[in-house]
């Protein structure tokens, strides 16, 4: 065992479940040197905790509101040094079967001291679960996009995205507040969120809900249609090939 204490983060939406984990971790601490760096009730809170206190292991509940544990685990993989993940779940036959297939560690609630100790011992040497395995576990398109900036993860609700624009090897994600860069292919995003975004240009997907209208462009985009967007002042040019969407969306 290493000299350094194992840093553990608890993520569960139910306070009693977090309290229980703390108790059991305290019991395990007698044998494994560990430190609870924090606890969080949602994935978004967990991101904030992690930004301030990086963890070696995340004990992660699967069924949580807003973003489930499996999606969160996928986003965590973007960290330069992703933490090991041990899922906790009360009952989910589907997930458990999948975990066993992919040899991902999980704990069944109620959690036992001996099992937790085992999982933590393994986590000290284990690698994070593979992205492919997690992808296999998740149901449907993730509700969040994630961007990694200086060692911390930003979670961007897909609902908040105004447009996605491809730039060299990154995609710019624009929300009403700010821009993020994510390492994704625009084509893949279009495939995943096709019902939500519409391609207005070779390099740009716009959220249908954000389209306020269209007008004839001026200056650089003279003679071309541009899309006016809710929540951002930028005007996005519509390519000639995609002109038909002006009629389609304009009519709604």
């Amino acid at each position, binding site marked *: 065992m290493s000299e350094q204490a194992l840093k553990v983060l608890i993520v569960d939406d139910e306070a009693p*479940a977090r*309290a*229980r984990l703390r*108790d059991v971790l305290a019991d395990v601490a007698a044998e494994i040197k560990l430190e609870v760096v924090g606890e969080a009730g949602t994935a978004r809170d967990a991101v904030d905790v992690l930004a301030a206190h990086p963890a070696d292991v995340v004990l992660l509940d699967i069924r949580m509101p807003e973003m489930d544990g499996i999606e969160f685990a996928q986003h965590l993989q973007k960290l330069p040094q992703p933490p090991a993940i041990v899922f906790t779940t*009360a*009952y*989910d036959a589907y997930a458990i079967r999948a975990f066993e297939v992919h040899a991902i560690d999980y704990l069944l*609630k*109620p*959690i036992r001291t001996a099992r937790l100790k085992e999982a933590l011992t393994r986590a000290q040497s284990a690698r994070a679960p593979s992205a492919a395995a997690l992808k296999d576990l998740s149901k449907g398109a993730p509700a969040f996009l994630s961007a990694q900036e200086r060692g911390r993860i930003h979670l961007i609700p897909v609902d908040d995205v105004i447009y996605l624009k491809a730039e060299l090897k990154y995609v710019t994600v624009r929300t009403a507040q700010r821009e993020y860069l994510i390492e994704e292919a625009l084509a893949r995003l279009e495939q995943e969120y096709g019902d939500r975004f519409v391609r207005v240009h070779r390099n740009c997907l716009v959220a249908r809900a954000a389209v306020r209208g269209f007008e004839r462009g001026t200056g650089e985009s003279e003679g071309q249609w541009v899309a006016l967007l809710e929540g951002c002042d930028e005007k996005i040019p519509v390519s000639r090939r995609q002109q038909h969407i002006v009629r389609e969306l304009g009519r709604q």
Partner: protein
Amino acid sequence: MPSINQNGYARALPDFRNLGILLRILVVVNVLAIAAAIARTPDLASAATELLTLSAIVQPILIVTLLALVALSTFLRRLPYGLGSAAVIAISIGITFAFFVALQRYALVEDMGGPARYVLLVLLTCTLLLAYFDLRGRALSPAIAEARLQALQARIRPHFLYNSINAVLSLIRQDPRRAETALEDLADLFRVVMGDNRELSPIAREVELCRQYLNLEQLRLGDRLKVTWRIDKMPPDALIPPLVLQPLLENAVYHGIEPRVDPGEISIDIYTLRNQLHAVLRNPYAHEGTHHAGNKMALANIRERLQLHFDAEGTLETRVGEDTYQVHIKIPYVKSK
């Protein structure tokens, strides 16, 4: 029906005074006549003529027999089933034989042949009909309904059990007293869930059970779960099938509260209106990312139980609003004795 409060199925003759029973007999006998006409003739055109000839004999016999059975219905149904069946067959054969003799004497129909064929045909038809009514009686018997009720017993989600135990475990060190109460609630809940729930029980008991269930959920969810009861107009003695409201609340928590970060409210209204008992449950509802297979099964289960108890008078309707989900149950207001 005399068998209504017995455990096994008691065989009984059909009630010949029931219009539905008479109609069924008429249809079956006439279908047999059509089949006979088709079988006896080489082509369809002559089959129509044959049917007419057959009807001239069959219809009077059929009608007189039915009249006799209606008249003797009360007496026949008082006999044991075997004897009653034999009596029905004897009456039918007797009437047929009388017709045969009369028709032959006045030579109304040519070339009738001997009586044995007619007697045999009537015997077969009667046996067929009695067997049909016996099977039908079995299918509709309360014993079968009870067996189906037993199969439909409500089940609690395993998810809830394990999460609750986990929550209780977390209390044991910090708040042993609350842990005790929680375990007591859990025990009460499972006593009912694992018990015999075929008979109606007072709604006050169901409400109490729901409160215990919600207490346990509150333990896990804390402020996220808000519950509003509006039951001051509820007659506590009204009868309801047990475990009708609790599974609906479980759905409401699972689909309405757990997927939310913000607090959500579940409301329960119970009242009577024009001699009907109404129960209305509402919970917040997010349109996206829902998983309703399990939900539909629970609803179908409850709906079927209401129908078994109250037939068409027990209904369950769901309505999806802008951001709420509503279940509305209507059943007849039956008071406990």
